[in-house]
């Protein structure tokens, strides 16, 4: 789903905030708002639903959608570490 050649990297840096509205993401990604809402409803784009028609999309999900570089998760597996509880 990454949008190669998206001209939005600079714009995203100019608007550094935690959440974006679907219309803001649509503008950044040069897509329609309905496409962004479809992505949300299909589970392809992370979002939090604040009310029936209000969604907020986290910054990192926007970065991924635009195909920009984002830190990868760090996964540590230690099967022999002693776990107590």
């Amino acid at each position, binding site marked *: 789903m990454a949008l190669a050649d998206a001209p939005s990297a600079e714009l995203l840096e100019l608007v*550094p*905030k*935690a*959440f974006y509205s679907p219309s803001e993401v649509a503008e950044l990604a040069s897509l329609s708002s309905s496409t962004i809402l479809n992505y949300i409803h299909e589970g392809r784009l*992370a979002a*939090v*639903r*604040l009310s029936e028609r209000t969604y*907020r999309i*986290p*910054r*990192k*999900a926007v*970065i*991924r959608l635009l195909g920009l570089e*984002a*830190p*990868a*998760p*760090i*996964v*540590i*597996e*230690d*099967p*022999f*570490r*002693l*776990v*107590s*509880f």
Partner: protein
Amino acid sequence: MSGPAGFRALTDGEIRTRRDRLTDFLDAWGDLRVDDSGGGGNRRLLEFVLEAPGGSLPIEVKATYREYYGRRRDGGWDIAKYHYEYLDVARSKRFAYHLHDVGMRTLVAHAHCDDATDLQDEEGTHRFRAVELDLREAHEEFMRLWASDTGPDCRTLRPLEIPRRLLGANVAQPRFG
């Protein structure tokens, strides 16, 4: 060891799949560190630490999800308890969903809510009523709190009341965590 209602035993492969799917799910929200420990023994911890919004922006919230599993005789894993924690750094608020033993009662689902800005809250960490949740449900609730204007409101919660006879003799209600 048997799992609580709503949770079924997981095989090694299923627990690895769960870890990987949750990693993908949570990664969209910020900087994520995942720790899977003890899989070679009888007690296992899956821990997800999320700092959001991540990247170059200051941390506004920190969510920590810990699931503790015990090995079954058939080799599978039962969840033994969980701690799903949300810390709103910017607004000095904490909200949490826990499932663990409380006094003599086993595996009690409950919530914690601390409002550092509420000066009337002199008792510190209280327990509140809650239902068993999956990690995704807790995360969605936490993210909704973050995105809302006010964050968690501890005053809307109902206290968890457990009969004194079911609490340990040396444990006073409701001061423990």
